Every structure is written in structure tokens, then in C-alpha cells.
């Protein structure tokens, strides 16, 4: 473990605490957020060389406060120049920090910040960016890199997100009780998006790909610790663990995708599977059922099969039926069709798929073509399967998916793809 990675881990942990302290003290989330970012950057360059200060949090709060005070002073000076009424403004000393102010618990702070960053007034892209910066402690440059956009674009997105929070009149505090469930659902969705982005991306450097998934899992762990009785929080954490466990097997060295049925299961992370299975088993026995729990349960059934042919597809079909009932969605139907095909044969699966043909949300989506191709191949309709694989390959915007789909189509041409 290098000095840099120790410092980076510490800074990520402290970021939300410091931000909450400064926001409470100065009363403005937007400016406090900028000040924390500057303090984090200063620490990231100074600490590895000069050593970690005795009270890292105190150091960050002091540096952040100084930036904020400078900022407020200059704002105030401008206000004084611009208006005679400036005389009525409070002297800066009134908002300047006391050195050793008592802080509320860090737990509440992380939760409050998550709710604020995932405010419903923001677009999902903005919620994601702001959460990674304010709660995750990532720099704008790191977030920009993870999403393959220029730093200026990401900076603009974050700044707009903060303006929207301000415009929505959101305050630094827990949402009212009657909004809590709905707001928590948004927080979970944002963590899910962060995880997914990291999981599906292959930038070529493993370290960079893992950044987002690890961050999503870390925040989900925090959230689970704070809200141990929220079944969907546990469900999402379990889903992430059980999905991420398969990461080493999902691509080959050259970046090609390996379908679940062909993955080398010896490469899966046994520890993460064990943890995820234990978590979802416990949760299902005591919490109100929800979509993340069901998806985690499905992932657990896959992960527990020693070989692909040992998969308990009957159980998966039942779980998808439940999922389709409580959270109907064309993507769920797609996966359900595959499961049904594994139990009752490809024609039964194709019948399930047919229900999607009139659904505008998925018509023309490459995943529909890809699943249909797969089921047609199982049914022995080689010409039909080839046509659908090629249609899916043209429609996807993912280079690895296109390569995979084209290889499936080519394999059919050789007459070798019927039984797997």
C-alpha cells in the first residue's frame, strides 16, 4: 500500500464529513462543496510528502474554512462596493469557524448528503456526478475520466447540479418523513447507475474500471450500515456484490465479452459471493420484498451453481415472475424469456418475447434482437438466429457487444452454434 493510496482512501472517507461540517457552519452547500474539493486536492498533494496530520479531519476543515472565509470576504467586499446597504451585512467574524466545534455524528451527515446530491430536481447524470464528488470524494478529473468526457464538461455538470439544488430551495437536512421512501429510492437508483457504469465499462485499465464499482459498493455499505432494516438497501448491496464477483470472468484478456454460461467460474470471487448470498438470504427472511432484493436473489442462484448446467432455472423463473409483478419492465421480460426458455424450451421463451413486440420502450433495442437470436438458435432456426444476431450487432453502440454478436452469427454460419 503506497502513501498515495492510503491518503486517497482516508480522503474519500473524510470528504462527506468535512463537507457536512462546512455546510452547517457556513450555511451554503454550493460554496462549501467547492472549498472541500480544494482542501482535498491540497491534502492529496501535501500529505503523501509531508505526512498525514494528527487530526486529518481538523486539517481539512481548517483549510476548507479558510477558502470559504476568503471567498465570503471577497463577496462581501464586492457587495460593499456595490450597495450602500452592505453596512447591514454581518461582519465576517460572525460566520468564521471556531477551532474545535462539536460535530453531529458522521452517519447522519453521509445520509443527509446522499439525499441532497440525489435531489429529484437533478437529472440522473447530475445526481451521479455530484454524489461521486460530494459523498465519494472523487475529484472532478477522476469523474470526468470515468465517464469519458472532458473535465470542463463534468465541472459544468456539477456546477449546474449545485445551482439546481439551490434553485429547488433544498436545505441541508433530512427530507421529511413522508418523502423518505421515495427519496431513498432515488439514492439507490443513483448508486445502481454508478455501479453499472463501472461494471459495464472496459476502458482497458482495470484500476480505472474498478473505481466506480468500488465506490458504489463502498457507499452502499455505508448506507446499509446506517439503515440496516431497509430491505432494498441490503438488496442493492447484495446485488452489487454478487454481480461484481463475476467480473474477473466476464471478459477475456483482449476485452471480449464472455456470456454467463461460458464463464470460468473458478475465477469468480468466492468471498464476495459468500457475503452477498448471506446478506440476501437474511434480508429476504425479514424485509418487505423489493426489486433489488429479487435481482440479488436471481444473481445468487446463478453464483451458487458450480457449473452453468447446474443452474436452478426453475427458481429463477419464479423469481422473475415475482419481479415482473412488482416492477414490470421490458428488460425484466427479456430476462424472463431466457429463463422460461431454459425450463420449458425455446418456443415458450419466444412466446414471452412476443409480448414485447408492441412495446415502444424496447422496440428496436438491440437486446431484444440479441435475446430473440439466442432463443431462435436454441430452437434450431439457424437462418432466423443469424438474421437477429446481425440486426442486434448493427444496433448496439457497444464495441465488445458488437464483436460478440458478430461472432455468434459467424459461428452459426459454420454450423457449430446449435448446441451449447
Amino acid at each position, binding site marked *: 500500500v503506497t502513501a498515495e493510496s492510503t491518503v486517497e482512501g482516508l480522503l474519500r472517507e473524510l470528504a462527506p464529513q468535512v463537507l457536512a461540517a462546512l455546510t452547517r457552519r457556513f450555511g451554503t452547500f454550493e460554496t462549501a462543496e467547492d472549498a472541500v474539493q480544494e482542501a482535498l486536492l491540497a491534502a492529496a498533494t501535501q500529505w503523501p510528502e509531508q505526512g498525514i496530520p494528527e487530526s486529518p479531519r481538523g486539517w481539512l476543515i481548517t483549510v476548507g474554512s479558510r477558502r470559504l472565509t476568503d471567498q465570503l470576504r471577497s463577496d462581501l467586499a464586492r457587495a460593499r462596493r456595490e450597495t450602500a446597504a452592505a453596512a447591514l451585512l454581518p461582519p465576517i467574524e460572525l460566520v468564521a469557524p471556531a477551532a474545535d466545534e462539536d460535530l453531529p455524528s458522521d452517519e447522519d451527515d453521509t445520509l443527509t448528503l446522499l439525499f441532497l446530491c440525489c435531489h429529484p430536481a437533478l437529472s440522473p*447524470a447530475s445526481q451521479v456526478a455530484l454524489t461521486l464528488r460530494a459523498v465519494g470524494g472523487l475529484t472532478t478529473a477522476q469523474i470526468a475520466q470515468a465517464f469519458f468526457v472532458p473535465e470542463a*464538461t463534468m465541472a459544468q455538470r456539477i456546477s449546474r447540479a449545485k445551482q439546481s439544488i439551490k434553485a429547488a430551495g433544498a436545505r441541508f437536512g433530512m427530507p421529511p418523513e413522508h418523502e423518505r421512501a421515495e427519496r431513498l429510492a432515488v439514492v439507490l437508483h443513483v448508486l445502481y447507475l454508478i455501479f453499472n457504469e463501472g461494471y459495464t465499462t*472496459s476502458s482497458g485499465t482495470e484500476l480505472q474500471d474498478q473505481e466506480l464499482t468500488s465506490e458504489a459498493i463502498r457507499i452502499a455499505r455505508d448506507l446499509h450500515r446506517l439503515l440496516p432494516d431497509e430491505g432494498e438497501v441490503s438488496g442493492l448491496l447484495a446485488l452489487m456484490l454478487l454481480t461484481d464477483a463475476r467480473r474477473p470472468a466476464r471478459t477475456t484478456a483482449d476485452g471480449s465479452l464472455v456470456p454467463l454460461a461460458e464463464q470460468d467460474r473458478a475465477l469468480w470471487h468466492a468471498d464476495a459471493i459468500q457475503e452477498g448470498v448471506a446478506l440476501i438470504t437474511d434480508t429476504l427472511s425479514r424485509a418487505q420484498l423489493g426489486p*433489488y432484493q429479487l435481482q440479488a436473489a436471481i444473481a445468487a442462484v446463478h453464483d451458487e451453481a458450480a457449473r452453468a448446467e447446474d443452474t436452478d432455472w426453475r427458481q429463477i423463473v419464479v423469481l422473475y415472475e415475482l419481479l415482473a409483478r412488482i416492477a414490470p419492465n421490458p428488460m425484466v421480460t427479456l430476462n424472463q424469456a431466457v429463463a422460461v426458455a431454459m425450463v420449458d424450451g425455446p418456443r415458450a421463451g419466444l412466446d414471452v418475447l412476443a409480448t414485447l413486440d408492441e412495446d415502444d420502450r424496447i422496440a428496436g433495442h438491440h437486446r431484444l434482437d440479441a435475446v430473440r437470436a439466442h432463443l431462435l438458435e436454441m430452437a434450431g432456426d439457424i437462418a432466423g438466429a443469424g438474421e437477429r444476431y446481425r440486426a442486434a450487432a448493427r444496433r448496439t*453502440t*457497444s464495441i465488445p457487444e458488437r464483436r460478440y454478436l458478430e461472432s455468434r452469427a459467424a459461428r452459426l454460419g459454420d454450423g457449430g452454434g446449435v448446441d451449447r
Partner: protein
Amino acid sequence: MSSRPSHLEFDPMKFVVLIYSNPTTWAEMPAAERDRALGVHFKLIKELTESGEMIRVDGLNDPMATKTIRTQGGVPVVTDGPYGEAKEFLAGVWAIDVESMDRALEIAKPVAEYDTVEVRALMDLGGMEM
């Protein structure tokens, strides 16, 4: 609690907006109208930059200054000038990062007032195993 387990409704994508112009259309337009029409572009660019959706904006030089390279008999041959009989030329390229194709089209529509606009998705390296 209503969770949204699929990212179907949020499928962030990068697109290029390719703007094909007929130089004559713009040259023959009254100055006031040209200013108004270009003003629509500039306003849009500013809005997209501020919202963090704009990745990059480029305008292309006049087609007269174009060089075309074609390999003939295994040798790359450079010729002057625009391509064939075309009346419209690629005049601008925007790169945007938005939530959906629908959003990309919403952005591109006002740009098409006097030009032909193509919206094309960029390929990316992410992928789901199937």
C-alpha cells in the same frame, strides 16, 4: 417504494450532431435573418455547455479549402476541392453527452432550420455479457 431496477430509461450516450450546410443558402440570406438563425445556434451551444451536455463544438472551414485523398493504384492521390456534385457540405460537428436519443434529437432540431442535420451515436467500450 418504487425502485427502478433497469437503466432502460437512463441510457446515457454520446452522439455527434453533423451539420450539413449549403453555402449558397447562407450567403444569399438577408443579414438580419442570418444573424437571427446563427443566434439560435449560439444560444443552444451556450445552454448545452452550461448544462454539462456539450463535449465539443467545431466549425469546419469552407469546402473550397478541402483536400480529398483517394488511393489510386495503391498510391494516395491528393486533389483539391469539394466532393463531386454535392450541394451540402459538412460545416459543423458537435459532440454531446445526453440521456437518450430523444434528447439528442430535441437538441438537434432547431439546428436543422436551414441545414440538414445527422445525429449519430458514438460506439463505446462498455458492454453487457449476454
